[in-house]
């Protein structure tokens, strides 16, 4: 018998997430989804649309505007045998639940000397770029990646949108999944048998030899575009999608650097104290002598994200700014 590869369908990041939610709900009765407007409204970004009709109110649970209480309740339910998926509409509102996430979800296992587990998944939208102004444009992935005790994942492809959720649910510890809101409409092909994927390793999204572009989440499509344009100038860029921001897979990052000796990090967080800064620091610690040029970072400007479109676009990473940083990096000779 020949091995047949499964047929592919054209779908979106949003649909892929919904497939993952549906599968999880079908597969395990302990799984339930809760959050603001996940049910009746059909999900703020329509990710959970139709699930209420399919699974009912017990398992697709609309919550009041009580971020601290329902995230905390998710932690409590996870402590007591359930596998909750808590949707916090956007990371902007997760600040109201930060105490529960940081002081309970991330610490209970440790404080109890390893007696308890919190198998919880928290999903939230993140990112700027839609002219929603300062309070609605945050990128807090890097902040959350600062916290020991939680795992942070950032699906940026259809495969990861489809496959990370189940693996995250099976993880005995709390996992926060950041979905960049600009990715929901991302279209692409997905195998009909696509399923769980690992949440441990970074992925090389484009192989290359002249420099390494390290990124994640909403900046991945921009970085791939920049790599394409670099190729037109005969510069071969390797693009690494971190996928998981905590714990960081430095093996993949350093493996690439050992080949290219040059690196640019693209991260939508503010530059000061960013995830990009952490990666840079680890390269300094672990692979300083591999570098042929200083590492560059393309991050958000040190400003609350402004409303006006041209100012907002100037504040966040762009293909042009990635390209410029990459060119500076390859033109430095040691």
């Amino acid at each position, binding site marked *: 018998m020949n091995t047949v590869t499964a047929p592919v369908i054209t779908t979106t990041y949003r649909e892929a997430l919904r497939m993952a939610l549906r599968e999880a709900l079908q597969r395990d009765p302990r799984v339930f989804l809760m959050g*603001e*407007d996940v049910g*009746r*409204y*059909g999900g*703020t970004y329509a990710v959970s649309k139709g699930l209420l009709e399919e699974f009912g109110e017990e398992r697709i649970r*609309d*919550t*009041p*505007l*009580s*971020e*601290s*209480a329902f995230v905390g309740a998710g932690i409590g339910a996870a402590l007591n045998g359930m596998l909750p998926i808590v949707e916090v509409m956007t990371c*902007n*509102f997760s600040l*109201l639940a930060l105490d529960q996430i940081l002081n309970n979800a991330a610490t209970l296992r440790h404080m109890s000397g390893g007696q308890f587990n919190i198998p919880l998944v928290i999903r939230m939208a993140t990112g700027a770029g*839609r*002219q*929603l*102004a*300062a*309070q*609605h444009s945050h990128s807090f992935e890097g902040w959350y990646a600062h916290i020991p005790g939680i795992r942070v994942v950032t699906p940026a492809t259809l495969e990861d949108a489809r496959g990370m959720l189940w693996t995250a649910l099976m993880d005995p510890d709390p996992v926060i999944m950041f979905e960049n809101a600009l990715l929901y409409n991302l279209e692409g092909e997905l195998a009909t048998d696509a399923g769980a994927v690992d949440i441990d390793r970074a992925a090389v999204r484009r192989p290359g030899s002249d420099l390494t572009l390290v990124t994640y989440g909403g900046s991945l499509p921009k970085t791939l575009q920049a790599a394409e344009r670099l190729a037109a100038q005969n510069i071969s860029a390797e693009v690494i999608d971190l996928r998981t921001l905590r714990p960081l897979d430095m093996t993949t990052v350093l493996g690439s650097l050992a080949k290219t000796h040059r690196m640019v990090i693209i991260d939508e967080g503010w530059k000061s104290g960013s995830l990009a800064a952490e990666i840079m620091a680890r390269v300094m610690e672990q692979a300083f002598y591999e570098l042929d040029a200083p590492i560059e970072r393309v991050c958000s*400007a*040190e*400003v*609350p994200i*402004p*409303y*006006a*479109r*041209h*100012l907002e676009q*100037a*504040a966040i990473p762009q293909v042009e700014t990635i390209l410029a940083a990459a060119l500076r990096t390859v033109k430095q000779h040691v």
Partner: protein
Amino acid sequence: MTPDPILARKLLHEMVRIRRFEEKSAELYSAGKIRGFLHLYIGEEAVATGVMQALQPEDAVFATYREHGHALARGLSAGAIMAEMYGKVEGCSHGRGGSMHLFDAAAKFYGGNAIVGGGLPLTVGYALAQKMQQRTGLAACFFGEGAIAEGEFHESMNLASLWNVPALFLCENNLYAMGTALERSEADTNLVEKAASYRIAGKSVDGMDVLAVLEAAQQAAQFVRAGNGPYFLEFRTYRFRAHSMFDPELYRSKAEVERWKQRCPIAGFSVRAISEGWLTPQTIAAIEAEVAREIAQAVEFAEAGTWEPVETLTRDVYTARVQPE
């Protein structure tokens, strides 16, 4: 309450001004001139109109992301608001805030806040500062009924009452928080009682009747100004449009929306004003014409506005310091 013709004209003018401004905003959103989130106040005009009429220039106003009507009624120019939504420098927040973040220091308008409940603690602190500095103005805070589920609401009510501050809490109960109906989010839907549990006096008011709103707001403001502590008003109202421009409205029936539209605050007041002899149809037509002119000018002003150069991207993050010599 029986208004004299001047007050009746003023109230209708303000409500029509808000309605037409919002309709124009929706149109400009579809045309791509306004971006981001746009939350319309259509259907709820009587609340901001009646309350602002009861406030004084010395009072401060805190509002939500659904605040165009409040900004207009507080006296911000339609042009400055429209320019803000265009993202122009001439906007009331210089293009940095957009629809959800209208600010005006001179009008003591402390903004559009896009975090539900976010304005409540600020209001308590502002009112506390008024008291500590023996100033007379009160602090008024508008918020949706959805905010009542937030811890910040309860913490703020308690503090306001405990410290006996001059705060006026104005809950716009339009029955939905995005797609979540009040009875699906509150175990007890009696909102006035929640305030009462913090020993804050309160009242529920028909938010579709501008005269009822005005009367209740005047009494409440008087109560607060007299040093009796905070007061809570619930306005029962309804938004005729979607939550924002992205809402497919799966959670409520067209029939329900139609029923509420029968109680349109503008149509209702117009009919009554004519039958009571407060206003003539000619006056009402004149109001429409004045408003149409004002809004056309506001759009022109916004169109003619300027874009801030990107070189100043990081301005207004910190206050410029005077360098020591």
